[in-house]
């Protein structure tokens, strides 16, 4: 495949759909979590209100260039991740730039946002930001390790680094999915998935009670709004990778919505019932449970 100009409006359309789906999905998940807590929960449009409110704030201050760039990097991480994997497999419109990127690039983008965030938050000078960044990077690193191992196992399994090709290999029935062809790698990846979704028990980074809000402590108004937008896009983008690597991808929007919803639900199912781990606890947990699974997956492969 080669680049065509038409791909740019197509990519923007994808982005638009994914962003809105992300806003609604996080609200729906919040509502489900609320129902488990026997609450009503926020209205599904609450995320939009918060976003408009934050864009509508009149004053904003900056602590420097990196502070300003932080949210941009973060958003770039989310958007970039989305751009280089096929959102809908087999469609011209929604495959974005997936011809150009491979798994390594995707993995890089997963990490890219966190790094940008760390730099920006660091410049805000707030001690809580620094604490949050330290916690965040340690935990994300620990969580990414099994994922990387799983990705490696999958790459070995399919003998390619192209996401599109991996998806293609899984077509032809549910049993062709990596989930069934390489369950141990999927298990390692899903444990890692829990760790990167910023939900309990792995949400110590944002730890609303002990270190108020973590890295974004100093972020407000439009900066925060940018990050909110990313918080809608990034999880979906990440789920798209998981979907493509392990769950056979999606060939149509309904299949996409359903699979993303279900994969997202995994983190919620676990998240609403467990209390939070401390950083060293979660790192230990990843190293003890997830990493060996990843190693086994590679050894089998």
């Amino acid at each position, binding site marked *: 495949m080669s680049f065509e100009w038409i791909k740019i409006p197509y990519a923007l359309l994808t982005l638009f759909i994914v962003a809105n789906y992300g806003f609604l999905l996080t609200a729906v998940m919040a509502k*489900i979590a*609320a*129902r*488990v*807590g*026997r*609450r*009503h929960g926020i209205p599904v449009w609450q995320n939009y209100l918060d976003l408009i409110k934050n864009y509508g704030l009149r004053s904003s201050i900056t602590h420097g260039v990196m502070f300003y760039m932080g949210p941009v990097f973060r958003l770039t991480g989310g958007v970039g991740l989305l751009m280089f994997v096929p959102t809908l497999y087999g469609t011209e419109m929604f495959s974005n730039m997936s011809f150009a990127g491979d798994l390594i690039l995707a993995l890089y983008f997963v990490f890219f946002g966190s790094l940008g965030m760390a730099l920006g938050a660091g410049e805000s000078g707030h001690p809580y930001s620094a604490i949050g960044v330290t916690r965040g990077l340690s935990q994300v690193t620990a969580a990414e390790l099994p994922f990387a191992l799983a990705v490696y196992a999958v790459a070995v399994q399919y003998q390619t680094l192209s996401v599109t090709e991996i998806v293609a290999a899984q077509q032809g029935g549910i049993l062709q999915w990596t989930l069934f062809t390489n369950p141990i790698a999927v298990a390692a990846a899903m444990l890692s998935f829990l760790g990167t979704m910023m939900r309990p028990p792995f949400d110590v980074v944002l730890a609303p009670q002990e270190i108020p809000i973590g890295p974004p402590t100093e972020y407000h108004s439009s900066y925060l709004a940018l990050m909110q937008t990313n918080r809608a896009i990034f999880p979906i983008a990440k789920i798209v990778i998981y979907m493509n690597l392990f769950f056979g991808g999606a060939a149509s929007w309904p299949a996409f919505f359903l699979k993303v919803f279900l994969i997202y639900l995994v983190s919620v*199912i676990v998240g*609403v*019932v*467990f209390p939070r781990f401390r950083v060293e606890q979660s790192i230990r947990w990843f190293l003890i449970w997830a990493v060996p699974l990843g190693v086994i997956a590679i050894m089998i492969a």
Partner: protein
Amino acid sequence: MSLSDVLSPFSAWKNLFRDPVTIPDPLNDRPGAPRYRGFHQNDVEKCIGCGTCEAICQNAAIDMVAVAEIATKPGDSGLRPRIDYGRCCWCALCVDVCMTSSLSMSNEYKWVDHDPEVFRFTPGVDLKHWDSAELGYRRPEGHRLTGNERVDMGELEPEARADSFVEIVAGYDLEQAKLEADRCVSCGLCVATCPTHMAVPEYIATIRDGAYEQGVRLLYQTNPFSNVCGRVCTHRCETSCAARHEGDPIAIRWLKRHIIDQVPHDRIKQIAAEGRVSEPSGHQVAIIGAGPAGLTAAFDLAKAGHGVTVFEAQPAPGGMMRYGIPEYRLPYDKLDEDIDVIRSMGVEIRCSTRVGEDISIDQLRAQHDSVLLAIGLHQGRSTRIPGSEHRDVVSAVELLRRITLGERFEVPETLAVIGGGNVAMDIARSLARMQRQQHGKVGVTLVALEAEDLMLADREEIDEAREEGVVIIPSRGPRQCVIERDAVIGLETVHCISVFDEQGRFAPNYDDSDIQLHDAGLIVEAIGQAADHAFLGEPLTEALEWERNRIRIDADGRTSEPWLWAAGDAVQGPDVITAVAAGHRIAASMMAIFAGKPAATR
């Protein structure tokens, strides 16, 4: 860590299929619970504006404010509490202490506004939507912060007192007085009702503190007859006491007596003399009549350094206090103590000096800057029924005077008293004592025109009289004195249906078919008294303005003659404390005039 530790938390997911516990609409679905302490309600009709709520409020959240629609009247200050919700902490002490239970709390609790000035309102006056809220905090039945019942006053038993003139009432001891004083909430509603505005809450407070000398000081500021008033005052203050609404009023009179009883007489004299002007001003005042009005004016004037001479027709000073009130209610030595304090101010009292006989009023006028006429009502009124001219039909005041003077006259075994006032009770009870002393039994019948509950005498007087054997028959009008062989043998009465007509005028209506005869060897008329103004002489009588047989006076007690003031029962009535108030007013009025006029040199 077992597998079940990991899996069991997931059971929380079953909540997804249960209803949320969230209150759907907490703004409207959650009225305050019964007895919730919300915003205040006040029944302004019941409220007496005593300010007890303001006094107890620990947060200074309550103001007493005048309300246009509510008039000040005896027993109701006309003020109403205004509550500042920038201060209130909803502790409900104000509701608990409210003397009339008018104050309560609704169960409404939501009040938001952008303006901080609005959170202040007078419940019951500034209308609020929770005024009609039925639920909310009310003081529980029977729960009071202040005692409801008056501390009992020790009294002689009827058997012990019925044949003696020894004082009946024992007076409170220290502990009783403290208990009774503790019931007072110091609202001061009584102060305005008292004719001379005694500082009641303040002197009651001195009992709590045991500062009796300060109490005496406060008493003497407004009343030099605390011994007298502590015993026989008509205590109108007690009728406006906030405590009376849900219990007995504070025994203000007994507490006053308690204070004066605790301080030695010599010390009282010293305290009363505090602030006395020893330098004579040169002004001379003549006072006719050594009653409460005259002596009070004399006290004030003498204390301010003016020369005062009191002329008294009777052999001892005191006026009606001595000659009208029986000794068992007001011992003479206690009266003498009060008069002694007044004398010690430098007042000269000339007893047995009858103006008009021993000295003329013109002489008084010539020798003094001003003259105060303060005579009592020493002449009894007559019923003028057939037979009332008989020598054994006598007036109560005359008999009381004779008893005081120590005349030992014979009383018949049966006698009748006509009248339902306190004087009637006094004479009936005095004569009953003499009967017991002379005959060993009582045979007094008292007939009153009014029905029992409308009789003018104090309730306790009526009850005590009955206890002492006096037969009281209400609603009987005297018809004639039955005379046989030149001796009174009985009083014939008819049933009185009503005393006043529809316009409220005195017009008794009798049922002539219901006639009774009461055995009586002596008939005492106690239906009212009159003053004897004959000594004034014709020119002065002509010059003065009169109003229904009384000299007309202005608010300061001045007559139409610039040198003459008048006070006491002869112009005003009806009781000691009113006379004391008049005495103060007149002294002040005289001194105001003296202040602008140098003393005449004589």
